[in-house]
């Protein structure tokens, strides 16, 4: 309604009030991750979050790792994929306990999914719990799962500049595995460049070159796991 003469439609103004909330958007996930981390530490389970783009060789690396270490180190696996039980079936064939988490439309695992998976899997004391995240270098980076360590896997068939293109992922990695090094003679991939890029994202990231199929470098990967198993099950998150 016109304020001068009163013409025009009547406008009603409703009274509103402002309420300050100051709620962290990731608070719910982070609270759940803290609870996961506490449970894992209390039960002496080392949780390792494996992240990469699709096709970097995560599942092949896990199959080989479990087959090589299975007699000496108890391993269990949470498999994250949008659909299918295919990876869980591959891991199940190694004899390791495995639970498949299908995220459906979701592009990452979150702490609640992992809490549910751990309840179903019930990993034994002194074990290593591998959490194979959904193949994706973007979304999983933001979600703390309660893990003790983050491992990012890169294969030499990808671009060596990926750490610069996906800095959120690489800045949270404790270890970068450069996989498929058996293919280096056939591809243009500069390992030194890739490592330098990863260290821009996280200066103290550890790096190991491996081939999950031919076996190169796996001894160092197993040493890393054993060392973390001894020192790191109760470790807090090292990224922010």
């Amino acid at each position, binding site marked *: 309604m016109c304020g001068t003469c009163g013409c025009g439609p009547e406008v009603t103004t*409703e*009274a*509103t*009030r*402002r*309420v*300050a*909330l*100051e*709620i*962290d*958007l*990731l*608070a*719910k*996930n982070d609270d759940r991750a803290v609870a996961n981390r506490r449970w894992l530490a209390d039960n002496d389970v080392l949780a390792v979050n494996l992240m990469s783009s699709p096709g970097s060789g995560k599942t092949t690396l896990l199959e080989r790792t479990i087959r090589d270490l299975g007699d000496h180190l108890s391993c269990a696996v949470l498999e994250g994929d949008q659909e299918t039980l295919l990876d869980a079936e591959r891991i199940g064939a190694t004899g390791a306990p495995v639970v498949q988490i299908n995220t459906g*439309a*979701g*592009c*990452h695992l*979150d702490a609640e999914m992992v809490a549910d998976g751990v309840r179903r899997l019930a990993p034994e004391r002194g074990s290593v719990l591998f959490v194979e995240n959904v193949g994706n270098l*973007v*979304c999983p*980076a*933001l*979600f703390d799962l309660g893990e003790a360590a983050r491992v990012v896997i890169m294969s030499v068939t990808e671009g060596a500049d990926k750490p*610069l293109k996906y*800095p*959120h992922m690489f*800045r949270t990695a404790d270890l970068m595995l450069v996989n498929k090094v058996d293919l280096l003679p056939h591809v243009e991939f500069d390992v030194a460049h890739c490592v330098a890029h990863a260290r*821009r*994202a996280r200066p103290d990231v550890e790096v190991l070159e491996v081939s999950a199929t031919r076996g190169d470098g796996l001894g160092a990967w197993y040493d890393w796991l054993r060392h973390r198993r001894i020192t790191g099950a109760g470790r807090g998150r090292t990224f*922010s």
Partner: protein
Amino acid sequence: MHELSITQSVVDAVTERMCDARIRRIRLEVGRCSGLVPDAVRFCFELVAAGTTCEGAALEIDEPPGRATCRACGDGFDTAEVLPLCGCGSADVAVEGGRELRIREVEVV
């Protein structure tokens, strides 16, 4: 598209905290180095707010930049990059802030 689940968490948190109050406006803070794309949040918001007390609410997003300090030349500058380069060419740059992901306030009837 992690924005979908994070936007869902915005609506969940607001409806939980504000009970039945009708929400007219939500103000978020999404830092430029946070890894969240504000336009994707806006796109998702209409979908996840439908049928809740947040339906029809205006969504305002503040986007604070990160503050970078070059360890080589000492220069300081605002940035939206997680791994910025300094004007002097150095990549040895410390970034603070810009990672904010918060619901600041709401306006309710």
